[in-house]
């Protein structure tokens, strides 16, 4: 039996109270177990951040129940909550002169005395947290001199030092470049797998979430919160419904979004492999659909991978040009296709 870390039931989230309240989303029910990485996905405005803030206790729920480690979430004091969940937020933090070590040290606050002085055990936990987050080498650096990715690692180290069963992150990969995104998610994956912590993070990085998350929470306006493993959700075609409202096609096989092209013309291509895939994409952008292998029309593009210039264009069976660059191939082909019309 998996251990329940967080459980929300029929939760209504939003702002204000009484008659003037604004419900962002209602009737949310989901569970998060120990040792799981859960990604919360949804478009902007569906209430991802509101849900995260409600779970963190930063704003009151407008109805429903939530429990953390079998305690009623809404009856926990700040101090008790600090021992159960740590957070990494999108809030901009500027602390004059603060070093990475000082920031991570603040993560020990729930355990320190009135003046917040760290003892040996605290210092050891701070050091090992920085090590696990691979930010140890920057421990004496000021936060203001770190890159966005390093700063995020420092905040994750702070959350780790807080030593809570659950770590909650609000879009930890926003504003990061691709390598940093991958690194952060790998780091979180690692924390979950080796330290038996649970992680709940909201994100827009669908492809990374599909690969790294144990389970997903999908949030769409006016619909129930869908939860399940990425594979099950793909299997049952759940993503389509979530994103369909915005006219985006979701490809279940690749887990990627497809952009719909409108085609005005076509071209026969013989060949296969990576060159073929790239060529198809480049032509699709120009509104030309590629037809594979059949002989139709007067034009033919053949991919001969072993040649120095693999892209060879034939008109009525005669070689017109050969090219090594896809960009030039597309440009030249367009010219012949136009004159052909």
């Amino acid at each position, binding site marked *: 039996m998996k251990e329940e870390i967080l459980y929300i039931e029929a939760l209504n989230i939003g702002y204000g109270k009484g008659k003037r309240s604004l419900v962002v989303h209602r009737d949310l029910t989901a569970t998060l177990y120990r040792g799981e990485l859960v990604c919360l996905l949804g478009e902007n405005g569906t209430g991802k951040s509101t849900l995260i803030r409600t779970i963190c206790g930063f704003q009151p729920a407008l109805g429903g129940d939530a429990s953390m480690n079998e305690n009623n979430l809404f009856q926990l004091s*700040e101090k008790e909550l600090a021992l159960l969940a740590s957070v990494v937020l999108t809030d901009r933090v500027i602390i004059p002169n*603060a070093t990475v070590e000082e920031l991570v040290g603040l993560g020990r606050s729930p355990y320190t005395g009135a003046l917040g002085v760290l003892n040996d055990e605290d210092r050891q936990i701070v050091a090992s947290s920085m090590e696990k987050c691979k930010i140890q080498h920057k421990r004496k650096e000021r936060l203001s001199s770190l890159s966005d990715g390093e700063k995020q690692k420092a905040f994750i180290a702070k959350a780790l030092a807080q030593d809570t069963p659950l770590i909650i992150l609000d879009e930890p990969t926003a504003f990061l470049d691709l390598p940093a995104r991958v690194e952060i998610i790998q780091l979180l994956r690692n924390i979950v797998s080796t330290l038996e912590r649970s992680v709940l993070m909201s994100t827009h990085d669908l492809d990374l979430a599909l690969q790294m998350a144990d389970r997903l929470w999908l949030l769409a306006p006016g619909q129930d919160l869908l939860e399940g493993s990425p594979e099950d959700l793909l299997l049952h075609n759940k993503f389509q419904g979530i994103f369909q409202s915005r006219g985006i096609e979701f490809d279940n096989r690749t887990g990627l979004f497809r952009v719909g092209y409108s085609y005005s013309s076509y071209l026969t291509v013989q060949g296969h492999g990576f060159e073929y895939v790239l060529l198809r994409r480049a032509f699709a952008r120009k509104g030309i659909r590629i037809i594979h292998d059949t002989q139709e029309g007067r034009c033919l593009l053949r991919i001969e991978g072993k040649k120095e210039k693999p892209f060879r264009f034939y008109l009525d069976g005669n070689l017109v040009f050969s090219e090594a660059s896809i960009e030039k191939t597309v440009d030249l082909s367009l010219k012949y296709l136009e004159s052909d019309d």
Partner: protein
Amino acid sequence: MKRGAGRIPLVIVAAVLLLLSLIIINLVLGSVHIPFREVRSILLTGNSSNIIYENIILKTRFPQTLVALGAGMALGVAGLLMQTLFRNPLAGPSVLGISSGSSLGVAMVMLFTGNILGFTFSSLGAWGDFAVVISSFLGAGIVLILILIISHRIGGSLSVLIIGVMIGYLSSSLVSMLKFYSPEEDVHNYVIWGLGNFSRLAPARAKGFALITVSFSLLSVLLSKSLNLMALGDRYAANLGLRIRRARFYIIVCAGFLTALVTSFCGPIIFIGVAVPHLAKLLIRTSNHIYLVLNAALIGGVTSLLCNLIARLPGMEQELPVNSVTAFIGAPVVIWVIWKRRHENRLE
């Protein structure tokens, strides 16, 4: 520059030494030069070969030095508390409108009563001074209570800051109305009060003032854990177990009390409260408020004593008003600090 843990004790020790030497220089230098030996024997044994020296030291310089020391420490610490609470480098003791409340209280007494009762306020003498302190403290206290009630009702610190600044404007506008309808002599007195002065207190009261301000400034170290967390922002602080509203209450009470005290007895001293925290942070280069509060207190005392010294440089007939000196000395220092750090491309 030395970095790491070794730097902090170094800075603190240097600041203490600087503070002590400035206290001595403040006693020695002035329109009349009194040798250090004489100063020492007057302060330690209470008598001197020269009765004039004794009078100057005990009745003027010593109380003035004590008041400058206490006021500087209090304003430095109050400014740091406000800058951290509001996470705003431009915040200072005056942002909560407490010194404006003080000024309004004083204006009420100085300008309003005189107007209504038909005599000029300055004719009251010593009773007038007493009334000024009381009214100033009342004005500050009322604003402080108002701010505390608002801060308890409102979630975000930024809203508290904006309301504080607005209350400041409100009091200033009331003061200017009062000024407009008051006799010239009272307005002149009010303006003089507003320029700040470290020498209004009699020796006994000066000791009491210094005792309270210095001890409260140093006691603010007890707020350092809350301050460290507040610097992270309200949400992070709450997540680390801090009860935001209560912590904010204590910080505002502490900063407000220090500001009210200084303003009531010295007038609204400008600049020290904004500039000193920056100097303190720059020198000590840590974000831990245990050291920051301590250093802000020390640097506050140093700055204030330095200004007091310059205000009555030897060779000048009259003492300059404190506020003219604080900004005149302080502003270039802050500009220089920022200019020096321009390559770091950040303002912290």
